């Protein structure tokens, strides 16, 4: 089959590799019909994530048709499914608590050592996202092997297009959980850092959960315009001072809840950001963290901070004093995708959440390397690229 493979920083290629096979009873093989490039794929593209190996197949947002099933799979050939990016067994203690991204068993035993050393406990498995999270082949390919297929994939009813449901795989539940983690109360003002796909879904989700006002922060005019379409007020941090603007816009109180949907590749030339970049390039620190610092400082006293953004390492100059003195709450984590799928599929079918607005480009799988470059270089216009293995190359 053809698959998008990683070879190094800013070097991804479409190669011919062996087709996946059923290896465990609960496996299924999915023929990919649509797969998206995620903002967090750019972290891999930029070489920020350790434990990548040349030839690794990327992609953790995908859907397709079931073409083969193991004896323990509950799927049937011909079904259309969206596959969660988190690989969860459904039977461990954490899965029992619906903490699917904390699954004990989704990550192969030998690969758990790295996470155990870095984080104290091993991570769950993720598709196409380094060997830290299992080393599983991703879905930017013609076919993919899906373990625990009786737990993860959600069957899509007829009449829904791929483009309407594809984002159930990651960014829609991630934006939704980001808002849920902000514990929104009626009348709240919610600030969202980053108007990428997760931020924009967090904006929609926050309103659905009862926020009275949402203030979205970014510097790409097109993305801010999309946020305004969903009713958000906006701050362009290149034109306005974010902390000052947030305080003025909330009558001096600060937002009730702050959502950091930016993460470890925050843009913008702020002093701490530049220092972080120097540290990152000299291996003194790994994460560039302007947005989370700002969220903590801007948040109102007793408020809530939600952090869907991806961080991987250790930071310093974390405003722990502000965090403590103001009595804030922080919730974060990889998304427990499986927990949210039925409700979010229903919300899409009822027209409560718009998903297709996000897609700016549809491309053939063969054009994926061009897609990565475009997404990396032109983030204003490129909101989401969907790869279609069935499409002819441009």
């Amino acid at each position: 089959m053809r698959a998008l493979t990683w070879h190094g920083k800013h070097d991804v290629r479409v190669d011919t590799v062996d087709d996946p096979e059923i290896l465990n009873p609960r496996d299924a093989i999915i023929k990919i019909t649509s797969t998206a490039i995620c903002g967090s794929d750019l972290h891999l593209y930029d070489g920020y994530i350790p434990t990548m190996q040349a030839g690794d197949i990327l992609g953790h947002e995908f859907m397709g048709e079931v073409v083969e099933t193991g004896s323990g799979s509950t799927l049937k050939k011909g079904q259309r499914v969206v596959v969660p990016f988190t690989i969860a067994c459904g039977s461990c203690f954490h899965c029992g608590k619906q903490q699917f991204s904390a699954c004990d068993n989704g990550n192969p035993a030998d690969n758990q050592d790295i996470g155990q050393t870095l984080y104290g406990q091993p991570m769950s498995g993720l598709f196409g996202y380094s060997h830290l999270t299992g080393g599983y082949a991703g879905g930017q390919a013609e076919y993919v092997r899906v373990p625990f297929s009786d737990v993860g994939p959600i069957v899509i009813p007829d009449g829904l297009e791929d483009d309407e449901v594809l984002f159930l795989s990651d960014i829609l539940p991630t934006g939704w959980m980001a808002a849920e983690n902000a514990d929104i109360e009626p009348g709240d003002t919610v600030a969202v850092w980053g108007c990428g796909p997760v931020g924009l879904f967090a904006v929609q989700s926050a309103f659905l959960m009862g926020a009275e006002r949402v203030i979205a922060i970014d510097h790409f005019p097109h993305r801010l315009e999309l946020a305004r379409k969903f009713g958000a007020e906006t701050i362009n941090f290149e034109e306005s001072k974010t902390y000052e603007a947030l305080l003025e816009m909330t009558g001096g109180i600060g937002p009730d809840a702050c959502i950091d949907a930016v993460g470890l590749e925050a843009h913008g030339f702020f002093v701490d950001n530049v220092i972080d970049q120097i540290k990152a390039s000299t291996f003194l620190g790994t994460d560039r963290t302007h947005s989370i610092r700002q969220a903590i400082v801007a948040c109102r006293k007793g408020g809530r901070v939600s952090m869907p953004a991806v961080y991987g390492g250790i930071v310093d100059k974390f405003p722990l004093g502000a965090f403590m003195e103001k009595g804030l709450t922080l919730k974060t984590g990889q998304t427990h995708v499986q927990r949210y799928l039925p409700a979010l599929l229903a919300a899409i079918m009822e027209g409560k959440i718009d998903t297709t607005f996000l897609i700016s480009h549809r491309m053939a799988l063969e054009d994926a390397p061009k897609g990565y470059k475009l997404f990396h270089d032109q983030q204003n216009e490129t909101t989401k690229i969907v790869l279609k293995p069935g499409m002819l190359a441009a």
Partner: protein
Amino acid sequence: MTDVPQTDTAPLSTSKRSDAVEQTSAALIDDKGDTLVGKTVTINRPRQFLFDYWRDFSNLPRFMDNVERVDVLDETRSHWVVKAPAGHRVEWDAIITEEEPGEFIAWSSMEGADVPNSGRIDFKDASGGRGTEVAVTILYDPPLGVIGKIVAAMFQREPAIQARRDLRRFKQLMETGEIATAARTRAQYEEEKN
């Protein structure tokens, strides 16, 4: 054995004190060495279920990477064949020295073993209905000479990591019915197993 009273309730295998091995070996039925491995894992399955699976030693190679096969000789004796680097193998006979169904199994290698070893596995109910805490303690004494070097390379590099990985695979098999693999093809899968 120095008799320093323990001032906490953590497992002896996690002790910073040099006499911890001595104390742990005293807890075993038949002490076979001074290299200690101790690991605990929580498995979301009933105690008796886990005990029964483990008690049939011929099951162990399914999740113990180094163990090629275990022949069950009779009610208490078994013959172990374990992979070593460069295509070598080490073998020994082991005997169950004590057991309590659903609670623990203690074993010891018999006279003439390539790697004298002894240990025990304990099963106890985990708190909060989380299933069973499974604790493995192994003591072994790698011999000198050529075979000793092979065995040292096999066991001593990171014996705690090997035990931890084996216990994770046991947990995966018991909780999910299979052992997770990231392989994409059958060929990759076979390569990983060897």
